[in-house]
């Protein structure tokens, strides 16, 4: 049974981080270059960490599966990044950002972590501006802000619709500087396939060079995983196609606990699926719901008709009908579930029946097309580009899609997992968003972890490791792990079955979405849990992976990732089944208030569920870490 000590410092909430920083152990500057740190991932979390650790004098090796660190999935974030700067003088503060994040997370995150996140948020903006991140500005030359969901202040910084891109390019430039200076050794197109544990501590990784196929061992004094979220377990999502869970999943199988895997976020306004060939769902900003009205036909028979031909009396503006006070601006999760319900009734729009109309005809009548174009023109363009339909002439079709995973590897206040020496940052850890993440907070967390937390907290661990005590890659633990990965690679190629990898990913995605998507019940989860193991067996018996192990082989890469999703999916469903309450993104239909809001059970579930691997074909162990709310009162989330 894993030891889950959160190591939350004692004392008043606002003093914890400052106090902790003065109390944790330091590594003498002259000794830093004697330590080698492996950082896997170069998204916001990984590149900010790698750059900063190298600046401090540590020797850093950075691994990414992409062909350049600049291509990490963080690049795709659009909306913005939160920070408690209070530049708008609208009453924002560190406490308010902390409180909004705790409440947004439906009281399922740690108070101390979230408060620290809010504290460092202000430093992030300073850092990014100093690096040349071209944030939006006002005419006076000062930084501009916009507001985002779940907040009553304007605290979101942005760079057009490309905030993630600009923040990542900032961190990438800092990382590039350290690579150029010889302080970071960069391994692109190198995929971590295993974590190596020596004497109970994380001391290295096994990586495959995706171009040559070479499988190599790398030793270090500590390993940092910043490998992003696992939403592609659903196959279709707003994630980049390459995003995967392999690094964290293999670490889980080496003993790191996986916390709250069932906390997944579904975004209500995405462009719907158009056919089985679909590979990706594109997000459209939620701001569209400010002026667009959402509806489906009242009658099933009308579902396939041209929407403009359906008379007003035959339209069901279901959000306005069911949630009269909030209407089309009902919270993300409620809007998503309502869309699913009307489509399940057979009233969904479009060829697939999985879509609802987002109609701007009233707004155009009220404001004129020019005004609508000015507010939302770029979004209408994206929609047109993908669907070839004009949102000005005919209602757009939208549908919810998987967007973010709040769960991830369990970490303590130092961002260290229960495996000593293994640190986890960014979306890959579970730490700050509880059961639901607020918009513009993932970018903040990734950069907070990388620039301002890990550079301090990793020293506390390294100070206890003798310089130069790093094991050799010739040791038995490395050799065994390497042999295991070679064996797995050959096994994929040897199956020579009947179906391509994509076939299994699609089927898994469907099982996950139907059983453990927007709304979950005991029955749907049990069904998914019955379906996943045979699907996994079928995969291992009949997947067809062409080509060889000694060259670039995308089918082989995909096979490894999907094999992991086929295991992770099961844990996700098991976690969702065990958590018999609704909270944030985890909605169990059995547990809801009459208005459809999540009904938590704080008596039984005010804890983190941290799953521990017990061996192949054995049930994982569910450890818990109680969530003690000392400073905020847990209450029912209410946005009315």
């Amino acid at each position: 049974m894993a030891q889950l000590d959160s190591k939350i410092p004692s004392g008043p909430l606002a003093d914890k981080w400052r106090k902790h920083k003065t109390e944790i152990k330091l590594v003498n500057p002259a000794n830093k270059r004697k330590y080698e740190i492996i950082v896997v991932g170069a998204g916001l979390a990984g590149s900010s960490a790698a750059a900063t650790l190298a600046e401090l004098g540590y020797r850093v090796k950075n691994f990414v599966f992409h062909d350049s660190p600049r291509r990490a999935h963080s690049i795709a974030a659009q909306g913005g990044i939160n920070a408690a700067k209070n530049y708008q003088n609208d009453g924002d503060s560190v406490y308010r950002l902390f409180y909004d994040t705790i409440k947004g997370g439906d009281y399922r995150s740690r108070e101390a972590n979230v408060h620290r996140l809010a504290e460092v948020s202000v430093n992030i903006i300073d850092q990014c501006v100093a690096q040349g991140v071209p944030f939006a500005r006002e005419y006076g030359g000062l930084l501009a802000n916009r507001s985002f969901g779940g907040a009553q202040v304007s605290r979101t910084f942005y760079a057009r619709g490309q905030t993630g891109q600009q923040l990542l390019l900032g961190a990438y430039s800092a990382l590039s500087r350290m690579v150029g200076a010889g302080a970071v050794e960069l391994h692109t197109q190198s995929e971590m396939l295993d974590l190596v544990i020596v004497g109970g501590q994380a001391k290295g990784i096994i990586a495959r060079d995706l171009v040559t196929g070479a499988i190599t061992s790398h030793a270090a004094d500590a390993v940092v995983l910043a490998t992003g979220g696992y939403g592609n377990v659903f196959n279709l999502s707003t994630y980049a196609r390459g995003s995967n869970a392999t690094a964290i999943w293999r670490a889980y199988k080496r003993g790191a606990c996986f916390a709250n895997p069932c906390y997944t976020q579904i975004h209500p306004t995405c462009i719907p699926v158009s056919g089985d060939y679909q590979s990706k769902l594109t997000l459209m900003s939620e701001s569209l719901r400010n002026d667009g009205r959402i509806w489906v036909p009242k009658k099933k028979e009308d579902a396939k008709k041209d929407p403009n031909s359906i008379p007003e009396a035959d339209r069901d503006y279901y959000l306005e009908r069911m949630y009269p006070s909030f209407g089309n601006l009902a919270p993300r999760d409620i809007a998503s579930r309502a869309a699913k319900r009307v489509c399940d009734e057979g009233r969904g729009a479009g060829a697939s029946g999985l879509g609802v109309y987002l109609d701007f005809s009233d707004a155009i009548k009220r404001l004129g097309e020019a005004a609508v174009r000015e507010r939302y023109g770029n979004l209408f363009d994206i929609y047109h580009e993908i669907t070839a339909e004009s949102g000005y002439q005919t209602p757009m079709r939208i549908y919810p899609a998987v967007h973010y995973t709040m769960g991830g590897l369990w970490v303590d206040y130092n961002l260290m997992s229960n495996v000593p020496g293994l640190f986890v940052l960014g979306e890959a850890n579970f730490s700050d968003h509880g059961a639901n993440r607020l918009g513009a907070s993932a970018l903040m967390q990734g950069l907070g972890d990388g620039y301002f937390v890990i550079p301090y907290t990793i020293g506390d661990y390294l100070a206890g490791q003798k310089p130069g005590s790093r094991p050799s890659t010739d040791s038995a633990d490395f050799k065994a792990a390497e042999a295991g990965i070679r064996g797995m690679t050959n096994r994929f190629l040897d199956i020579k079955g009947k179906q391509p990898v994509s076939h299994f990913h699609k089927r898994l995605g469907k099982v996950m979405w139907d059983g453990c998507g927007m709304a979950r019940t005991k029955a749907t989860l049990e069904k998914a849990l019955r379906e996943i193991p045979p699907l996994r067996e079928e995969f291992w018996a009949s997947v067809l992976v062409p080509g060889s192990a000694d060259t670039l082989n995308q089918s082989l890469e995909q096979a490894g990732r999907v094999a992991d999703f086929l295991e992770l999916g099961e844990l996700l469903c098991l976690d969702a089944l065990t958590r018999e309450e609704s909270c944030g993104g985890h909605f169990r239909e059995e547990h809801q208030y009459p208005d459809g809001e999540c009904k938590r059970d704080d008596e039984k579930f005010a804890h983190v569920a941290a799953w521990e691997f017990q061996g192949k074909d054995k049930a994982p162990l569910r450890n818990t870490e109680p969530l003690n709310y000392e400073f905020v009162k847990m209450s029912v989330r209410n946005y009315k």
Partner: protein
Amino acid sequence: MVAENTTKNLSITLRVWRQAGPNQPGKFVDYQSKDLNPNMSFLEMLDVVNDELTLKGEEPIAFAHDCREGICGTCSATINGKAHGPGKGVATCQVYMRAFRDGDVITVEPFRAAAFPIIKDLIVDRSAFDKIQQAGGFITARTGSAPDANALPVPKGDADLAMDAAACIGCGACVAACKNASAMLFVAAKVSHFGLLPQGQAERDRRVLAMVSTMDALGFGNCTNQYECSAACPKLITHDFIARLNRDYLGATIRHAFKPEPAGADGGT
């Protein structure tokens, strides 16, 4: 890609560059693809073709992709002779099958340039771009050393123009489109982004000199002002930035020639 909606499925002949590895001979191979939904993206069409190839026991076509929404810069194919294919201001992943007609023969090749060696099929090695960036594409701002973000106001016009340049996704289409395989648009975008901001002034000369000399050393060609680059650029980065780069470079070269570098000014760590 913007085109009129059509509901009729199409069949095409795909003429694809197949090359098993870096220094191996490559050739065009034809594949038939039938009954394609026009709403499918070009990359989704390749997914379908690849699954069919796999089922036939052949190796699928290797192609680079990730975000599939035009922002990561991973996708890179020359379609019918145009880097990123038909359409303006889009990356390969934003090309939809409705841009083609039933019966079309579609030629697909990797981005070709001496500085971008082919790895396999449609995938090329663009690490030269990273090397240029490592040589000087940054503002030195050690973590934790930054002043308050609003301490230094930046005129909105400058910030907006810097953002126009910073929008580059590092895809390399500019290089592939240029008959000299020049990387000037990419370098100009980065140099202009930093050079337009007050934070970027201290290292301005050093940056442009280092980036340009690294670009030259990596085997990119010279710019002869044909502007095929900006025409192919998925982010419509304007070639005006190239003029800005040339001015910066010239100024820095002159200043550098007359002003000796103080010892130890390596600007590295």
